[in-house]
């Protein structure tokens, strides 16, 4: 089990719309976490859902939520002062590594990568970040990455901003031009599949954050299983090499 304080009923301290229907929310609990770890947030009468920790400060912890359905809608509707119940952090976080890391985020996938960028920046790594989205107003947390000193490039599927194409395509181009010693990514499955392939082909070590339906979050129900691994316990961060293996055995995606 991860070192976690169990259940916390936390008060919402801040809320900011960082993209179209996407909110950065800070709450007043202090969680010891590793970038990539997640919490389970309970929206009474609706659902309890996993959210990566996206930022934190000395007296708060934060998440960034993209509204996609009922529970995220409810979470996106909390106001300052409201209370939410949080448990965790759960799972295995990223292993910060490399002097020239490349971070690739698809959509809300930027959330777990942001605290990693902060950690890497602290290690004086020269970070390059690719932030992709379908369209300009869905780009998430780009300023936050730049503020950390990451060379940040943008991609949009519709070309409304930055590179015209997917984050995975921009990643392939970038890896072709520059040298990296690690790749970290989070985003939709097809993106991860492509990046796994890019990393393997170029011999670059890396990790990805993987999403699966979560129920218990504590490694007991099996709902998040990929083969014999549990995303909530053994993940959500997996080595790209391991994902490649699972993929070639048809055990994932």
């Amino acid at each position, binding site marked *: 089990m991860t070192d976690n304080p169990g259940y916390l009923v936390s008060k919402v301290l801040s809320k900011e719309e960082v993209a179209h229907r996407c909110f950065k929310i800070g709450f007043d609990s202090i969680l010891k976490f590793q970038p990539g770890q997640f919490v389970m947030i309970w929206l009474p009468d609706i659902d309890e859902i996993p959210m990566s920790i996206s930022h934190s400060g000395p007296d708060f912890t934060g998440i960034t939520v993209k509204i996609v359905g009922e529970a995220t809608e409810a979470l996106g509707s909390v106001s300052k002062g409201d209370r939410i119940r949080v448990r965790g952090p759960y799972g295995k976080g990223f292993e910060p590594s490399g002097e020239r890391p490349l971070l690739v985020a698809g959509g809300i996938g930027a959330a777990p990568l942001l605290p990693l960028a902060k950690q890497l920046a602290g290690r004086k790594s020269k970070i390059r970040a690719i932030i992709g989205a379908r369209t300009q107003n869905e780009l998430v947390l780009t300023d936050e990455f730049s503020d950390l000193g990451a060379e940040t490039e943008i991609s949009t599927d519709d070309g409304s901003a930055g590179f015209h194409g997917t984050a995975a395509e921009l990643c392939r181009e970038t890896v072709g031009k520059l040298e990296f010693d690690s790749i970290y990514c989070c985003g939709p499955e097809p993106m991860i599949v492509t990046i796994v392939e890019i990393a393997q082909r170029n011999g670059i070590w890396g990790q990805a954050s993987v999403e699966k339906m979560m129920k*218990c979050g504590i490694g007991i129900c099996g709902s998040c299983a990929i083969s014999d691994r549990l995303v909530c316990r053994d993940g959500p961060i997996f080595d790209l090499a391991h994902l490649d293996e699972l993929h070639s055995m048809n055990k994932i995606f």
Partner: protein
Amino acid sequence: MNVSIEVELFGQRMKNPTMLASGILGTTADLLLSAVKGGAGAVVTKSIGKKPRDGHANPTVFEYNCGMLNALGLPNPGIDHFEKELSKLKGKEIFFIGSVFGSDGSEFSELAVRMERAGASAVELNLSCPHAKGLGAEIGSDPESVEIITQAVASSVEIPVIAKLTPNTSDIVALGKAAERGGADAVVAINTLKAMAIEPYLRKPALGNVIGGLSGQAVKPVGLRCVYELYEALDIPIIGAGGIESGIDAVEYLMAGASAVQVGTAIRGKGMAIFAEICAEIEDFMRSEGYKEVGDLRGLAHD
């Protein structure tokens, strides 16, 4: 001293008396295999029904300082899909038990037949889930339905039939006897206790389904009592479950009368490696106390 923890259960050899309890990570063939790799003598699948089922809304678990509550509500992919999953176990040497749930004898029988065909060494009837409408304990707390369902299954399959009993009753012995009359080859005691939790600061029940099942340490004294009572009354073997976390816990269940034990909640902390750990502790106990065969422990607390 050489000790043996091998057991024979309804004519089948198990390398040790520990089993993965139903519903704990038994959702994929790979996870079942990882339990075996972790040291389990046998594995029980998640309880499977006829149709895919999402189960209850989250939160589906609540951690409690001496156990946990769950109200998963029997989420499962349905027997059609699960049969394919189980086909991956073909050819592997693994003692696996298919757990099934249904609303009546014919549903249970149909599922049991499918499990038999899929290669299950035995079938376990979930007559005891405390938080699913019209299923589990709702039918399993009536001795007559227990007998009818067990009988329907027993007459449909060749493999041994195990009835999993509920402790949410005033008389578990009546349920055990009903299963025995119906032709069960063994019983499992216990499933979870009907329970709930409340989050005072949000003024809400802490489980999506409100009512759930309590498992883990908290229920061990209840599980031991049920096994003890059943051992005095039944001729068929009893498989103990409820709060087993260590070899000593397992020994207590064996002494109460269990022939084998199931481990569920404790896996949360230690993963599948807990089976090997429990087995090593049972062996240590046997060595230091001078028992050669693990079967020698059975029912000792009744002398």
